């Protein structure tokens, strides 16, 4: 009986995870510019990955409880993969957004763009630096 409940929880987690990964792909196709695509591509895949790895962790704990030595290894290593995803994903998104803005991609239909004026004041464009060196 307990095993059945655990199985149902695993399936529900898998369905939620696949649904959010689908939303990520769909948002990538539907949104109009880089920044809004980053919203879809980062948040939805991170949340979906949490649920997918969570289902595998529950599976490993269940196997461990039933007496298989592989189960503990499965659960602990999957937790390591989850921590790696949580640390690296938002940082990568931040790097892409910053690179996109500095390489000159403007947000579509933006109401305000506070960063644009800050860039003009403080950051030297890479071309200007090269001219100074010559």
């Amino acid at each position: 009986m307990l095993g059945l409940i655990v199985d149902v929880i695993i399936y529900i987690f898998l369905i939620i995870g696949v649904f959010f990964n689908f939303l990520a792909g769909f948002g990538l196709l539907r949104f109009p510019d880089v920044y809004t695509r980053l919203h879809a591509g980062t948040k939805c895949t991170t949340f979906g990955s949490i649920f997918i790895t969570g289902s595998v962790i529950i599976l490993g704990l269940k196997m461990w409880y039933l007496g298989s030595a592989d189960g503990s290894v499965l659960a602990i290593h999957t937790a390591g993969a989850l921590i790696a995803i949580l640390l690296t994903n938002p940082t990568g998104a931040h790097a892409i957004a910053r690179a996109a803005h500095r390489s000159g991609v403007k947000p579509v239909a933006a109401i305000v763009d506070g960063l644009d004026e800050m860039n003009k004041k403080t950051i030297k464009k890479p071309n200007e630096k090269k001219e100074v060196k010559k």
Partner: protein
Amino acid sequence: MIAFIVTSILCFIIYLLLTTGSGTLGLWSLEEILLGIILSLITGFVTRKVFIKKDYRMLNPVRWFTFLIYIIGPFFIGMAKSNIDVAYRVITGKINPGIVKICPDLKTDLGITLLANSITLTPGTLSVDIDEEKNNLYIHWINVNEKKLKGETVETKYICGNFEKWIRRITE
């Protein structure tokens, strides 16, 4: 010296996590543990100055405990909200974007990093750039509320709720 010990212990814990199930001594074999001790001592000696820069504030276990509560409680709820929000915008296509500036009152680098990552994973916002002198963050907001704008600046509580208080409690 403290930096060397802390870095070595952290490396040893990560090594143990990656080699579970290799033998009979608990979950590990004796050879793996000995090799792990030697390797983590070498790694700790080489990287001790990169990892901890004269700031021993984060060694306090109370801060780790607060951090764990923050991850499980308000952070996870904010993340669930943000995903439902993005799902709504993907399906209906209603967007109203813009880049705004916020001025969080945090001093340490670790605090700013945590806040930027939290903002990226929570409702409708994405950190784009940072002013390293004044610690101002520039945020891409997917649904700009024009009533709350003051020029380009928005108060921090409209962007990320009470995350700033939590992070100040963790890092300062």
